[in-house]
């Protein structure tokens, strides 16, 4: 058993002419909560998809439990994915199924468990996220925070080794945010899993993460424990952690000369 359950090794990935990642290396030790942070559009979510094998890297590799993800055939990939649970940004609950059926879905599809056992398991998973009482509701009847918790119950339905969270705090009120924060840490420690959290919420992440990677311009710009990063003197990290408007990441999208552009349009 390797010490790191997920390893990203010199990974490059991009679409057509734009490289999103330029030689990224990261490791995710078993039992830890590791966060990947960075601005919008820095390719954080794509990293999760590369770990899950939904995209193939242009160069380098991702290893999950010692196996290279992009070299697996369909069966191998599905075997690897059974070790992973993923919480999508908006929950991605199946809208035609009730909360109960959503959580039961992976059990029904991937196991031959009898109905009575599925029922017990579903109620246990829902209880862990505090929504046992909501099991007969439909996804449209849930608030954003509740939907995310149901999705989390579904992600842990088959006791994965790795839980991946894609922007778990996006668009949540402070109470729901605190609940999710707490759940990430509790589930990690109670289930003995490894958590990978993609996010840009500094305060929340610094409160629960064991280790943090900062991604910027396609490379790992900084890494360390929350305390290390708070004290970082790197200008980008300082701007990000303290949320300053201008800095190494400019306010303006690259553009030509302002004056010239305004005057130039008159002559057309």
């Amino acid at each position, binding site marked *: 058993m390797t010490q790191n359950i997920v390893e990203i090794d010199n990974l490059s990935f991009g679409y057509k002419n734009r490289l999103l990642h330029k030689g990224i290396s990261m490791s995710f030790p078993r039992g830890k909560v590791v966060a990947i942070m960075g601005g919008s559009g820095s390719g954080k979510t794509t990293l999760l998809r590369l770990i899950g094998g939904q995209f193939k890297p242009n160069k380098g590799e991702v290893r999950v439990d010692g196996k290279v993800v992009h070299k697996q055939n369909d069966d191998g990939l599905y075997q690897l*994915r059974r070790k992973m649970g993923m919480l999508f940004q908006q929950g991605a609950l199946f809208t035609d199924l009730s909360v109960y059926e959503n959580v039961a*879905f992976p059990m029904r599809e991937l196991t031959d468990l009898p109905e009575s056992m599925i029922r017990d398991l579903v109620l246990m998973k829902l209880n862990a996220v505090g929504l046992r009482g909501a099991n007969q509701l439909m996804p449209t009847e849930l608030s954003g925070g509740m939907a995310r918790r149901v999705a989390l119950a579904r992600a842990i339905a088959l006791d994965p080794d790795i839980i991946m969270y894609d922007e778990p705090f996006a668009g949540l009120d402070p109470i729901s945010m605190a609940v999710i924060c707490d759940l990430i840490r509790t589930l990690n420690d109670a289930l003995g899993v490894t958590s990978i959290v993609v996010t840009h919420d500094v305060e929340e992440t610094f409160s629960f993460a064991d280790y943090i990677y900062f991604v910027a311009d396609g490379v790992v710009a900084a890494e360390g424990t929350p305390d290390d990063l708070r004290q970082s003197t790197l200008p980008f990290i300082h701007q990000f952690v303290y949320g300053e408007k201008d800095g190494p990441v400019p306010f303006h999208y690259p553009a030509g000369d302002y004056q010239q552009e305004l005057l130039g349009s008159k002559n057309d």
Partner: protein
Amino acid sequence: MTRIFDGVLGALRNLGSNFIDQIWRLGAGTRLFFDMLISSGESFRRFRLVVKEVYSTGVMSLVIISVSAFFVGMVLALQGYNTLQKYGSSEAIGVLVALALVRELGPVVTALLFAGRAGTAITAEIGLMKATEQLSAMEMMAVSPVSRVIAPRFWAGVISLPILAALFSMIGILGGYIVAVPLIGVDAGAFWSQMQANVDWRLDIVNGVIKSVVFGVACSMIALFEGYDAPPTAEGVSRATTRTVVTSSLAVLALDFALTSFMIE
């Protein structure tokens, strides 16, 4: 001068890129079709997945199919009687209505209505499942969306359409009967006996069923592919839904011509 040249060049480039795009989509659609066939085992092992979809595609289309069939049958009888009576053969009205429905209108109009009612629903549903990452989530759960979502809907369409077409013909004939016999006063015995004598089991009914099965395959596959291939945005899904209706309708009419030309002896 250069501007005109640039314009022509741009138009040519657009034409070429559209053409390549269409070829690419045809290839992607064919690939999805074979992928779906290979992954169909699950649909038959757990047949209730298909039954659930038969309900939402087939059963939910019953009202529009029945109402349309009734009106089409009535119009056929009115128009047919108007012409036939000039030649003194108004008793042949039953045959005319039955043949028109069983051979052509049943399968074709049912397929067109099916594309509008069930096809668009399928495209929008799959497109939205994609846009809200439900298909991605399924993939990440190690469940194949092609075998769990696409295949059951495909087989449901292939099963529903022939049944709907048969119902269409039946209700259409009933509509024709109501106009011809009680309203116009054609003899009921002549209406039914002529129909019985002149509608052939193999050449008329079986051929009609073959057509509706082919239309079922085409309409379901087009609707599923358009949804699966839709860009995951509101605009993408709405365009895909429109394309489902346009492509399915054209495909049904073209296939109908091709099939009829093989069937007519």
